[in-house]
């Protein structure tokens, strides 16, 4: 797992609409990377649905969320529509899990990322991380607000 204080590895991935998104685009702003196992699993649904409910409070803290999983962008698009969320979802699809590996969130035995939160500061450095004890456990939104306090 990447640690606080380290530079956040840059990446460019396609989002649910096919647009290229680079971490470098967010320089000067704070961004929370939300690594998660898979689109459409019940837990992922809960995680992003609940973060959606506190989106105004996150926006007030000047933080943007980026979801990242190994799913393809078409799956992300359908997942986003199903959940009724507007969080940007990035496809770490090919090479599979490359970004998750760079951040140390990839679980080789499952073939997807664990639930990992990485807060990247305005200068592009890792400010805080959280790794779930297992992929079935959702990090509560309270943990994000603790990190931002």
């Amino acid at each position, binding site marked *: 797992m990447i640690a606080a204080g380290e530079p956040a590895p840059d990446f460019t991935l396609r989002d649910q609409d096919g647009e290229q998104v680079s971490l470098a685009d967010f320089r000067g702003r704070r961004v929370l990377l939300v690594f998660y196992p898979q689109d459409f699993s019940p837990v992922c649904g809960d995680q992003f649905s609940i973060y959606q409910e506190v989106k105004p*409070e996150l926006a007030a803290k000047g933080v943007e969320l980026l979801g990242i999983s190994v799913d393809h962008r078409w799956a992300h698009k359908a997942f986003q529509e199903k959940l009724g969320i507007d969080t940007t979802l990035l496809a770490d699809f090919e090479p599979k899990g490359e970004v998750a590996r760079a951040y140390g969130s990839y679980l080789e035995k499952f073939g997807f990322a664990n639930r990992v939160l990485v807060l990247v500061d305005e200068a592009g450095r890792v400010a805080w991380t959280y790794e779930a004890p297992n992929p079935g456990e959702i990090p509560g939104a309270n943990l994000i607000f603790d990190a931002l306090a």
Partner: protein
Amino acid sequence: MTDLTSAAVPPIGADDHVRGEGEEGLIVYADLGCPRCAADWAGLAGRPGRIAFRHFPVAAKHPRSPALHAAAEAAGAQGQFFAMVASLYADRGRVDDPHLWERAERLGLDLERFERDRRGEATLARVRRDFLSGIRGGVAGTPAVFDACTLVAVREREF
């Protein structure tokens, strides 16, 4: 600004929706639009002791949830909170406004007051208060059950 940092869920208070008798009790954060909550709530119904129901509507997932929680709160203002919860969970396919009016009539509620209350600021604030206390307590899925303010159970899921 709303503080959403971690904080233990508040103990059962006088203005909670509480069923049963006893000193301690379970606190359940539940979503009235959620099928898992409906199933678990039915399972908890026969349990002895106190149980407090707290609102945790997740609108992104269940778009009608905010309206259902407001309806339960408005029914509660006329003493029929748990009857409305039971009715909503028993028939999850009928959750549009006309269905809420039918329920209100069946429960003998003053319909005009019910309509006024369920759209009122106080009702929205009451529901949001529960929701935010759940967020601060780490609720990250429904239903979430706390015993003596400690999370004891979330429904098992696949990932």
